[in-house]
């Protein structure tokens, strides 16, 4: 499929090259989006029914209501896109709907194991909030460049959000929660988007200075302190806050985001080197100083050490058991035993349920959905002309990519485990809401990217 606006064809369109008339109208593909959304809702409903049939032998009583709920949400989102972002990439919204739907199915399935603690209704509520914010962003944010004006507001807001939980009691060893009126909010999730906006805005404005000034050491071009200072300061501060709050997953995510955007903005491989150096130094220091982190690394190297010690399998071992039990095709929805993981089965370890019950086939499908989401984000970035939009698209897509890698790699034993939410799948209101905002921004950016080539589009 050759998309108009592909970087290989700036300002040209293959399909109009041999068309004599100046019919400058791009296909909007909203029909494709609608069909895919219907498919996504149907797949989710099928999964919901499969859980009930496998565990109770009947279609769950709420199946129709569940399907209708998800369908209405998706349809409203679709209408908003049709109305205000008609050129948007048609894959972004269906992918988000499918991932959110599958996440609800998995959480509903795990709810059956914990009758006293039902998380699916709450998750559906937060999904509604997420879609509402999605619609709000699509309707109210007329152009992504508006955000550039708020570069510094964003960073202040991000730091405030990151600092707030320090004043609240720690939950399970991490100070990342705000508890207000019975709701738990994880401000760090929202800070991700704000930081992406800030990094994009700041780097877009200062990329020349960062790229061309500075000292040359061996083959690396090191930037001057004046340019680099603010960025490093912000970064150090946010990472410092995170280490204090013991949320290492998000810390890793910020660091990765920072390095990727710096490299994309300047094209300096020196940044990669500096980044890796900083990462190694940071990892060593934190690993030494923090017993929490040290234990995570030890678990990663020897996931079965606790079994040998006679204490029984830890969460990572249980997670690996779950993935292994899934094999190639999985046990089928509702027929696995990932609940053995215990604490955080519905949130950080949600992927283990997918791995056990849907198998390597289902897991790969989920990974590919994320990959497609990221790819569409990058594609929107590539198609744009303004540096801020490019960096923002790539930043947002990279957040998804890095987050998926950090948590999926963690629960499958590829890298040390750090607590993080699998985008859209995992239980967690803040995470779902944030991810819907990310998709809304990507929709907005992709709409700009494609409409800039369309003669009929109203700017």
């Amino acid at each position: 499929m050759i998309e108009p606006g592909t970087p290989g064809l700036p300002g040209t369109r293959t399909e109009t090259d041999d068309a004599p008339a100046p019919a400058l109208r791009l296909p909007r593909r909203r029909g494709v989006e609608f069909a895919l959304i219907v498919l996504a809702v149907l797949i989710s409903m099928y999964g919901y029914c499969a859980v009930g049939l496998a565990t109770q032998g009947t279609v769950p009583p709420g199946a129709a209501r569940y399907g209708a709920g998800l369908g209405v949400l998706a349809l409203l989102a679709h209408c908003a896109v049709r109305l205000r972002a008609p050129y948007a990439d048609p894959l972004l919204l269906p992918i988000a709907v499918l991932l959110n739907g599958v996440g609800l199915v998995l959480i509903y399935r795990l709810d059956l194991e914990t009758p006293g603690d039902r998380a699916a209704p709450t998750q559906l509520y937060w999904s509604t909030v997420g879609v509402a914010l999605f619609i709000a962003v699509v309707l109210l944010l007329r152009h992504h460049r508006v955000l550039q004006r708020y570069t510094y507001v964003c960073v202040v807001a991000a730091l405030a959000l990151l600092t707030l939980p320090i004043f609240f009691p720690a939950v399970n060893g991490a100070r990342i929660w705000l508890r207000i009126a019975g709701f738990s909010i994880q401000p760090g999730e929202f800070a991700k988007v704000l930081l992406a906006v800030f990094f994009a805005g700041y780097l877009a404005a200062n990329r020349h200075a960062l790229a061309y000034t500075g000292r040359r050491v061996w083959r690396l071009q090191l930037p001057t302190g004046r340019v680099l200072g603010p960025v490093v300061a912000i970064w150090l501060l946010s990472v410092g806050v995170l280490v204090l709050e013991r949320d290492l997953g998000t810390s890793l995510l910020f660091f990765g985001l920072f390095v990727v955007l710096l490299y994309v903005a300047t094209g300096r491989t020196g940044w990669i080197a500096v980044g890796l150096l900083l990462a190694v130094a940071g990892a060593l220091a934190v690993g030494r100083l923090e017993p929490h982190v040290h234990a995570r690394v030890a678990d990663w190297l020897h996931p079965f050490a606790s079994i040998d010690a006679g204490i029984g399998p830890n969460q990572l071992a249980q997670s690996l058991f779950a993935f292994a039990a899934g094999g190639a095709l999985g046990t089928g929805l509702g027929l696995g035993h990932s609940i053995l993981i215990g604490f955080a089965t519905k949130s950080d370890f949600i992927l283990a349920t997918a791995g056990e019950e849907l198998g390597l086939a289902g897991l790969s499908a989920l990974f590919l959905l994320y990959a497609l989401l990221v790819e569409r984000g990058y594609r929107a970035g590539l198609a744009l002309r303004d540096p801020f939009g490019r960096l923002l698209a790539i930043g947002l897509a990279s957040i998804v990519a890095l987050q998926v890698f950090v948590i999926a790699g963690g629960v499958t034993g590829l890298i040390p485990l750090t607590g993080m939410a699998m985008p859209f799948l995992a239980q967690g209101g803040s995470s779902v809401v944030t991810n819907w905002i990310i998709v809304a921004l990507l929709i907005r950016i992709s709409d700009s990217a494609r409409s800039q080539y369309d003669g009929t589009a109203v700017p």
Partner: protein
Amino acid sequence: MNLPRGLDSARPGGTPTIQRAAALCALLLVALLVNATRVQIFEASRYDDNPANRRQMIARYGAPRGDILVDGRAVTGSRDAGGMFRYERTYTDGPLFAPVTGFASQVYGTTMLEDTQDATLAGTDPDLAPFPLWNDVTRTRSSGGNVVTTLNGAAQRAAYQALGGRSGAVAAIEPSTGRILALVSAPSYDPGELSGSRDSVARAWERLNADAGKPMLNRAIRQTYPPGSTFKVVTAAAALDAGVVRDLDESTNSPDPYLLPGTTTRLTNEARGCEDASLRYAFEWSCNTVFAKLGFEVGLRNMTQTAERFGFNDQKLRIPFSVAQSTFDRKLDGPQLALSSIGQFDTRATPLQMAMIAGAVAGDGSVSAPYLVDRTTTKSGDTVSATEPRTLRRAMSPATAAALREMMVNAVQEGTGQNAMIPGATVGGKTGTAQHGVGNSGTPYAWFISWAQADDAMEPGVAVAVVVEDAAGERGEISGGGDAAPIARSVMRAVLQSQRDTGG
């Protein structure tokens, strides 16, 4: 000039930095997929088999277990207790059948038939599936199959009741086939107490293990006793086969008391008339002096050979669970050989071993392999596998077996085993009273081994061995004839009765 190729690269074809960042993301995706494949495909079986992984246990207890059948009726059952390990084992007449069924515990594993037939009972045996590999493809487990035992319920019950709470064991077999008809151990326990994962299970386990009576010890096959005078059957067979004795009624030229070879230790008898007695008389009245001398004359080689043909020193006997090794020493000096030949010194035998000896006599001299599982079936009753009777070894010549049958019948009709007589049947038997403990201080074990043939039957239908550990009464009065023979009689009568009823 080395221009950085960043966002502003005007080169058509796009921006290499973004492409490289995208390549990084692709690399992360590949890493995730490769690692997921490693965990879910290549390491999967290793993780599945990790003992700390409870999935196999969950699957195991997720469905009712197949049953163990005696006389066509299930003596086991399954109860849905809910929870993670859902189905718990139940037993009807648990203590009675415990030496055969063993237990199937969520916490303490399995023993006996529950252990060796686990694949059938738990449904993991691939033969239970309608087609090969069917279960692998559908990721399901067959319903648990059933295990049909060779036990005779009436004989089992008769043995258990006749023991009447005394410590001891009974083993009964069908001589011609080796089918085990009764396997009883007392005191016993209720294996149902160990089913499930409740707290009471751990308490029961501790109590049973701490019990001085050792109720979980399967005395019929896992405990060896000095066989005492019942071993004289083996010595007599060896003497006859080796030609040391050619005529049952000829004098054996044996003194009373007998001085153990090369020593001044005097061996005496409880019976009278043992001096220069014939083999028939000596067998009938259980003369120690005669058999000690005969064993010594037969020699270590021949004695060991004969004992091993009967099944001594065999570590590999399975019925299908393992049977403790009965022993007859291969290195003995003269006095030791003489003592071993009357079932003392280091000679030790399981009750099942002694039943096999009686069975060999009844079955024309060859030892049939004893077995408990007649066949295994699917849940619906289709046979999956069946056990074919087979002969282990020939222990003695048919003529020797016939001579021994004659002497054993005499022992019951006129000698020490009169308590075993059954109207309407020919019974042959041999008593034994085995000394044990330091300086023979322990209460002697009372033994009786026998076989019985209904008058209208073609061949003996049952061979049995009984041992009673703490026979009631004063020392000296305890004897195989008094304490053990009536138990053997009840068992034999029950078997003959049921064989008559079924026309077998």
